């Protein structure tokens, strides 16, 4: 092989290799809010482990809840880039990890952590997370309640139910606190219908942080 031919080959091979040094620059995610529940000196944080995915979710066939839950699952799945969360609807509530029903949450016992949400006039929601005696293990199912305060056919009620369901599913995923920002779906009294970049960043951080709570088998 002649020298000039060899040089041509070396140039062809090394040019692209030199260009390949730079990496993509990831966003900072510094806009995330506190997602953990802090009670005194105790921090409660949780995310569904990969071994429990897809999370099985059952929805009562009332007030359009199955459609709202499907929408909520899709919203939260889309929040993640690396398959951290997947949900699936199941028809048998006895195998569900999360149960979504309509109505007002019943009075809770001492073991239940109630994450109440929403003071919107049209609807309200709550999520109950029951812990075992050690306070370290979640006993599934996590129960989500979404309640239309008025006739669901009235204007604004179905929209409120949709965003409240997605909000409550956020709690069931492990976002145990509310955002302080009104533009976030996880704000305590949300008005937006989709997840904000802050909601997504928070969910990502929650799923890449070692949780303090685990979940018992169903």
């Amino acid at each position, binding site marked *: 092989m002649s020298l000039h031919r060899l040089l041509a080959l070396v140039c062809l091979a090394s040019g*692209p*290799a030199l260009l390949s040094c730079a990496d*993509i620059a990831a966003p900072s995610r510094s806009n995330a809010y506190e997602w953990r529940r802090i009670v005194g000196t105790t921090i409660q944080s949780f995310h569904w482990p990969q071994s429990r995915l897809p999370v099985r979710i059952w929805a009562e066939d009332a007030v359009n809840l199955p459609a709202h839950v499907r929408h909520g699952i899709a919203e939260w799945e889309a929040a993640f880039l690396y*398959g951290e969360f997947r949900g699936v609807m199941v028809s048998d509530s006895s195998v569900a990890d999360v149960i979504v029903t309509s109505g007002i949450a019943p009075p809770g016992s001492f073991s239940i952590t109630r994450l109440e949400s929403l003071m919107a006039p049209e609807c309200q929601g709550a999520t109950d997370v029951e812990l075992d005696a050690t306070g370290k293990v979640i006993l599934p199912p996590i129960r989500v309640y979404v309640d239309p305060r008025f006739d669901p056919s009235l204007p604004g009620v179905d929209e409120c139910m949709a965003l409240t369901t997605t909000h409550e599913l956020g709690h069931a995923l492990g976002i145990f606190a509310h955002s302080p920002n009104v533009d976030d779906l996880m704000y305590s009294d949300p008005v937006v219908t989709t997840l904000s*970049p802050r909601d997504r960043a928070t969910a990502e951080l929650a799923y890449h942080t070692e949780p303090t709570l685990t979940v018992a088998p169903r």
Partner: protein
Amino acid sequence: MRAILPFMVLTIAGGPPALQAQVDYNARLGLTWATALLRDDVIGGIEVRQKLAPTLVLGAALPIAPRYRAGLELAVATSGYQSKQAGAPTVDLGTVRTGSVTLGLDGPVAQGLRWRAGVGLLLYWPTEDRGIFLRGRTTRFLAGAGIDYQRPIMAQWDMIASLRYDFHRFTTEELRARGFSQSQGVQRVAASIGLARGHR
């Protein structure tokens, strides 16, 4: 590229017999290995990488000078892709197909051995729009080089073995929407073997 591809195909397939007689064709099967598609940092480092991808390559080349040829190469590969974070299990993210079209030049190196260099387009086509591909497929520019070794095994058929290296910069619509800036340099190496048919 959309205009060039049909032009080349029509030129070769519908051209005069003299032109067709000079065209070398080859079909190869092989494997493609790639560096990480993406590196991110969420608490810890995360890497998204394609698995080793079975690859089908079809190529055609026309003489343009006594020792040089211009060629078109189509490569299709399919594989799973996965994310990996230190201390966490590897997560399968689905399947992505890649299809590339490269226009290139090749010339002799030694007996039976030829170099090749080309540029083209590379399409990432996920089977599901999710995660980094939430907003669908992405197309990237590609540059690459390689060598082919060709040896006669029958009257008109040669065995061909190829080694390819190529480079592109990867990003997706979803990553840009999420605030990822710049793009990830991805290098791929493909080895393949097959049959070539051409004039002698």
